[in-house]
Every structure is written in C-alpha cells, then in structure tokens.
C-alpha cells in the first residue's frame, strides 16, 4: 500500500513541479510587482478608486454581463429547439451553430470586421437601403457582436446536452394539466436547465471579462480591462498597475467560475 502511495506521488510530481514553477511562482511575482510601483501596496487601492480604471472595470463587467444574458437567451432557445426536434438537416444546423467553437479571439474580431467594418456587408446593405454606410465594428457594439459570436457555440452545446437529459414526460404532464407554452418554459424547462445555464453563463462571463484578441483586432480605443492592462504594460510601461489590474482580473474570473461551480454542483446534488 505504501509503495502504491509512493507511485501515485511520483506520477503527480512532475505536473505539480511544473505548476509551481510556471504558475504559482509567476502569480506570486505578479502580486509582488503590483506592489512595487511608486504607490507600493496602495497600488491595489489606487486601481479601485482611480476614475479611469474604475470606468474600465465597470464597462468590462457591464459588457460581459450583457453578453452573458444575451448569449443565454439566444443559445437557450436554439439549444432547446435542437434538443427537442428531429428533422432533416438538424445535424448540419448543429454543425453550423457550433462551427466557430475554437476560433481564437483575433479571428472573431476579423469576422466582425467583415460584417460591420469599413468594407463590411452590413455597411453595404445599409448604404443600399438608406444611402448611409453603417460601420460599428470598431466600437463597443462591435465588441459585443464579437463576444456573442464566440459565446453562442459553446453555450448551445451545453444547453443541448442538458436539454436532452430533461424528461419530456414532465412537460407533457404540465401541458395536460393545462399549462400554456410559457408556463411550461418557466416552471418546467428553465428549472431543469438551471445548473447548465448557470455553468455556461459563468464560463461566458469569465471569458468575456478576460477576452483580449477580439478587442485587440477591432481597436485599441476600446478601453475594456484587458486592453487597459496591455496599454499600461506596453505603451505606459506602468508595470505595477498592469500587474495589479491583471491580478484583479484573474481574481474576478476565478471567483465567478468557482461560485458557479459550487452552485451548479449543489444543484446537481440536490436534484440527486
């Protein structure tokens, strides 16, 4: 038995050593760097009260929140639809809905440029209809579209998987008891999907908070938190602030994911 323990430790040791050297140690160094500026430890306070950083933080949280709710609504409807119906072309439709699953943020940004950039289709169509060219790729609206673009595929997958596990008999029962379409959705389908929606929403929110490639491709003027970190690090050479902001950003995304995991886990356990 003791021998087995030893073998298990030996199996895990290389990965643990790797994590300590290239993850734990760097994070500690970053925390220390955050306190190494002219303001010392107070840098962490500064980033929470400085108007510019606060505006960036609230803008990022607001954007990520809006993206999450919109994605859950869109992917929720599309996902439940795909899980409920069997029809010719369903596989193709599913494949299309999940195609951009692993597109990096930069590529997503380029997709938004093709849609709504200076040479984009939306602009061309708007020009033909109204005579005025509509260009919104290089703004917060463009970023919103981009974040939807990469959030929808993974959320659709989660919803489909969860909705296929729901018992259709429950809905039939509710319907036969006289519940309308919306009542069934509100009282039967949504509670059944709660865990999956919570988990998918948390991932969506955390990803949107930290996403960088899309904003980087679209414009340097969009001051979401990752862009501010990048600017402070490269242009401003304000490494202490960049480190403190990164630490804050990491803490937020980690906390959101951890809370959702605990909540969704408890949910699963409660459903038994």
């Amino acid at each position: 038995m003791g021998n087995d323990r030893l073998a298990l430790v030996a199996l895990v040791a290389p990965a643990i050593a790797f994590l300590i050297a290239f993850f734990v140690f760097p994070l500690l160094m970053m925390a220390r760097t955050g306190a190494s500026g002219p303001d010392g430890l107070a840098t962490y306070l500064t980033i929470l009260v400085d108007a510019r950083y606060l505006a960036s933080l609230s803008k990022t949280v607001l954007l990520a929140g809006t993206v999450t709710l919109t994605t859950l609504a869109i992917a929720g409807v599309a996902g439940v639809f795909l899980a409920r119906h069997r029809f010719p072309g369903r596989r193709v439709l599913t494949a299309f809905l999940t195609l951009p699953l692993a597109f990096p943020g930069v590529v997503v940004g380029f997709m938004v440029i093709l849609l709504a950039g200076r040479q984009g289709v939306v602009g061309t169509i708007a020009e033909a209809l109204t005579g005025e060219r509509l260009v919104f790729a290089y703004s917060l609206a463009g970023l919103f579209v981009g974040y939807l673009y990469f959030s929808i595929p993974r959320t659709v997958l989660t919803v489909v998987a969860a909705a296929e596990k729901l018992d259709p008999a429950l809905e039939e029962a509710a319907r036969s008891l006289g519940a309308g379409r919306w009542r069934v959705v509100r009282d039967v389908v949504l509670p059944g999907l709660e865990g999956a929606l919570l988990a998918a929403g948390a991932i969506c929110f955390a990803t949107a908070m930290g996403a960088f490639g899309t904003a980087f491709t679209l414009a340097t003027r969009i001051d979401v938190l990752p862009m501010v970190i990048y600017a402070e690090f490269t242009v401003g050479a304000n490494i202490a602030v960049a480190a403190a902001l990164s630490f804050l950003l990491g803490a937020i995304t980690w906390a959101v994911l951890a809370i959702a995991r605990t909540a969704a886990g408890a949910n699963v356990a409660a459903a038994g």
Partner: protein
Amino acid sequence: MRPHFDPGFLAGLVFASLVAFFLVGPVILSVLAGVTANYQRGILESGITLAWLGRVFELYAPTIALSLGIALATLVATLLLGVPVAYALAKAPGRLARLAEEALVMPVAIPGIATGLALILAWGAVGEFRTHWTFILVGHVLFTLPFMVRSTLAVILAAKLPALEEAARSLGAGFLARFTTVVLPNAAPGILAGSLMVVTLSLGEFNMTLFLHTPFTMTLPVGLADSYASMRLEIGSAYTLVFLVLLIPLLVALQWAADRATGAPSRP
C-alpha cells in the same frame, strides 16, 4: 415527434437558422475574400485568384511552421505530464484528488493575458529563455494541461479502471505491465480526445501568446493579428483561410473523438 407544421417548430427553426447564418456567414465571406482578386469590386467582377494565398506563404510561412511545432510539442508535454496525473487522480482518495484537480484547473480560470504577464515578470529576465520558442511552449502547456487531464480522467473513471487493474494485479502484473496493458488501452479514447483538444487550443492561442512572443517567435494567431492590422483585407482573409484549413479538420476529428470517448463505457 411533433408534426413539422407546428408554428412553434417553424419559429424555432427560423430562429436557429438565423443564428447559424450569423455564425457561418462571416466565415464564408472570409473564405471568399481570401480568393477574390479585389474584394472592393467583388468576386464576380474581379475574379478568383490564388495570389493572396501565395503572398501569405511568402510573408508568414515561418509562423505556420512555428505554430504547428509548438502545438506538437505541447501535445507531447501534456501527454507526459497529464496522463499520469489523470491516472493518479482516479486512484487517489476523494478529497485530496478533488483538491489537486482544483489546483490543476486554475490556469484555465485565469485570463491568458494575466498568466502571460505573470510568466514574463517571473521568467522574462532569465537568460535566453524569453526569446526562445519554449517560452511560448510553457504557456501553452499551462493552459492546455487541464483539458488533457479532464478528458483522460473522465474515461478512466467511466471505464471502472481501478477494478480492472486490481484484477491484473491479482494475476501478478507489476505496475509497469498494468500501466501499459490495462490503463493506457482503456484510457485511449479519452487521451485521443484530449490530444485533439490540446492541439486545437494551442494552434489558436492568442491572449497569452501575444505577451510571450518576440519578433523571432511569432505564431500563427499573432501573425493573423499582424495581417489584420497592417495588410489588405484580402491577405488577412487568405491567411485566415490557411488557419481554417488547419483548424476545421481538427474540430471535426475532435467531435468524433469526444463522441467516441463518452460512448465508450456503454460498449461491450
């Protein structure tokens, strides 16, 4: 199943199709733009050309080679580090294993931009490491390792591997024999799905790599950002086309492997 003229079904179909159109439309535009002689004038008027693709290879061939190399090296590293961890987690007592798993997943919970910055602050000044491609490799391994571990662990747990292994042990098989003849073959579907995931993620990683790269170690996604910012739309599109040609087969294989991995336990 309900009949297809149901208005609810039709509304759902129209909605899902519109969403699909939003997701696939730009990809089609991008592919077309990559082979259009002049995007402004349109493909019908200006005609099809492979010149932009040729230009992409002239400008960015090293980034494609580097990304493929890093993806393969990341795969080897995650196999060596991750598969043993998955096996150990499956066998270790509950609470300890959960704690270890939690710690292992942390790099995914933190944005790549933060991890990239932390890596530079900790290791950026150490010898030649900063300008070497292995600096990027370290970041990619950090970010992809959890996926390899999870994918392998799920299959090991579903396959009731500890029981199988116990049987082999009672028949006198040593640790190495058990690992190679019982553990690896049974975990293979999970390892395969994990491997495809790792390669896919490494090929497309940008958030962290933008920080980690130097002019001598530019990867494909970093090159893409460069072309979007400084080249004609047609070149950016052609470059994206090259990336999609690499990525989409991986995604299709990944879907297949994931289905196979989750379906594995139900097979006799």
